[in-house]
């Protein structure tokens, strides 16, 4: 990554609030919050004005404890949930001049199908478990307007081969696959339209070590070969250390520290980051 590389994704003061908020917690920098929760009105601030940039070809790690808002960022960016306020600009969408949240449902769908790929922590969210793996990958291509079975099948098989799914199992439904294989099918699906940006949500959590290593290798390889920018959410610092160029640390819906991954992990500044790094086994 080079800071002179163009910014492909800029997230600007993204906010996600569950509840209406009250006079005490809605102001700027409210100090009444207990973690991200307002004890007066019960509102939860899942994201509090989060901003960051993602450069071309860069892997940005997002770390933080459970409930810190890591996945909420990805869910907002992939339009799975609606942010309360804030904006996000994608360079390939109107040259980064209009927030992706300003678009209609159709525009959002087109952004999602053409410019983004997402790998969910839970494969059930990202795959149709009862459809064949080939069809799962074709789904994203169909959604992007492809109507040629032969070409879609070829592309799906190439991608599945790339993620080392055996040829004789490609027509099988992911419900018959192991967790690691399901995760790899998801990665293949996310890559199907050559998206400039990949959103990875805890891709290796729950996988055994050898499978973890294989999935990580794959991600690394994809990033190097295709130059895809990635947002990598993980609470596993080892994964972040291996893959991410830069890292942001989140706590209670806020970014508390950001910087080069080595810098953040070797010389953590914020007390929470220090705790996080030192609790690494």
């Amino acid at each position, binding site marked *: 990554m080079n800071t002179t590389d163009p910014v492909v994704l800029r997230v600007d003061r993204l906010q996600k609030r569950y509840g209406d908020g009250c006079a005490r917690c809605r102001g700027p920098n409210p100090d009444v919050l207990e973690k991200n929760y307002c004890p007066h009105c019960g509102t939860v601030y899942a994201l509090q004005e989060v901003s960051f940039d993602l450069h071309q070809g860069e892997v940005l790690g997002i770390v933080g404890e459970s409930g810190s808002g890591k996945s909420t960022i990805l869910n907002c960016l992939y339009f799975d949930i609606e942010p309360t306020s804030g904006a996000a600009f994608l360079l390939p969408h109107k040259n980064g001049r209009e927030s992706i949240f300003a678009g209609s*449902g159709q525009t959002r769908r087109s952004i999602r199908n053409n410019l983004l790929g997402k790998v969910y922590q839970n494969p059930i969210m990202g795959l149709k478990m009862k459809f*064949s793996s080939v069809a799962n990958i074709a789904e994203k291509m169909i*959604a992007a307007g492809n*109507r*040629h*079975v032969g070409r879609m099948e070829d592309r799906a098989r190439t991608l599945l081969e790339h993620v080392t799914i055996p040829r004789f199992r490609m*027509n099988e439904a992911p419900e018959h696959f192991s967790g690691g294989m399901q995760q790899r099918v998801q990665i293949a699906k996310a890559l199907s339209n050559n998206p400039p940006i990949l959103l990875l949500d805890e891709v290796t959590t729950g996988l055994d070590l050898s499978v973890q290593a294989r999935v990580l290798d794959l991600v690394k390889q994809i990033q190097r070969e295709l130059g895809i920018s990635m947002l990598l959410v993980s609470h596993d610092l080892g994964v972040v250390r291996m893959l991410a160029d830069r890292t942001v640390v989140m706590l209670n819906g806020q970014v508390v520290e950001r910087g080069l991954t080595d810098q953040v992990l070797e010389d953590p500044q914020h007390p929470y980051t220090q705790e996080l790094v030192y609790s690494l086994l």
Partner: protein
Amino acid sequence: MKSLYNFAFFDEGSKREIRRSILKAIAIPGYQVPFASREMPIARGWGTGGLQLTLSLIGKDDVLKVIDQGADESVNAVSIKKLVGNTTGVAITEKTEEATLIQSRHRIPERPLQEEQILVLQVPIPEPLRFVEPREEVTRVLHAEAEYSGAYLILFEQIMRYGRVSTGADHPVTVHDRYVMAPSPIPRFDNPKMDHSDALILLGAGREKKIYAVPPYTRVVSLDFDDHPFQIEDVSGHSCRLCGATGVYFDELADETSGETVYQCNDTSYCLDRMNRTGRTEGAS
């Protein structure tokens, strides 16, 4: 005729509500209009959607024909005819060309429909995306955003599994270049008849409480892929054992004595009409 019921069974308010939904359905071709599906004297799933359309539309001068999977004499067709006949006293026919209103379960008659005719189709599952998305609130959004990859995905999966599209019936269609619609479980053979049809086609789903329509002369395109174009069932090489017709949709039967597979017209009134014209009798071949 004296009847204990209001004309056409329904009260006038019910008919008006259904007619209003029909008008909306015609105005937005292929769009599923929700309506207050009434309790009927037949069970839901036995044609109550189609029957409600028929009852709300029928007038004293109408001539009614009812078909059940091509046959005029099957139990379902006969009981619907009886119900409508007893509550309206309208003329009932088996001849497609005489009818002004045709209620059908899962077939479009072989004889081309005319401008002044209305075809009412009974629909079990009106939502073409239901198989990929069980939630109604989601499928509505998908329709609103014209997001139909789910319907294509079903066909794609069939090609992966069987090497070709394997919809036996109810092959989805795009109406007026906008809404994807379930044409009710008619065979693929009948799909092309919907395209620029002279007659108005109305579809009613009683259990699912939806009415939708294909207005006359509207573009109806069956979904397909560039390298897997839509195909109707291959009926070439067969002819009806009773009337000798070719190029129509056949029932495939096993001859009980010889065990051979034989074919006969699925549309009974079309077959009968041909036999009357050519002087053929049943069994002669």
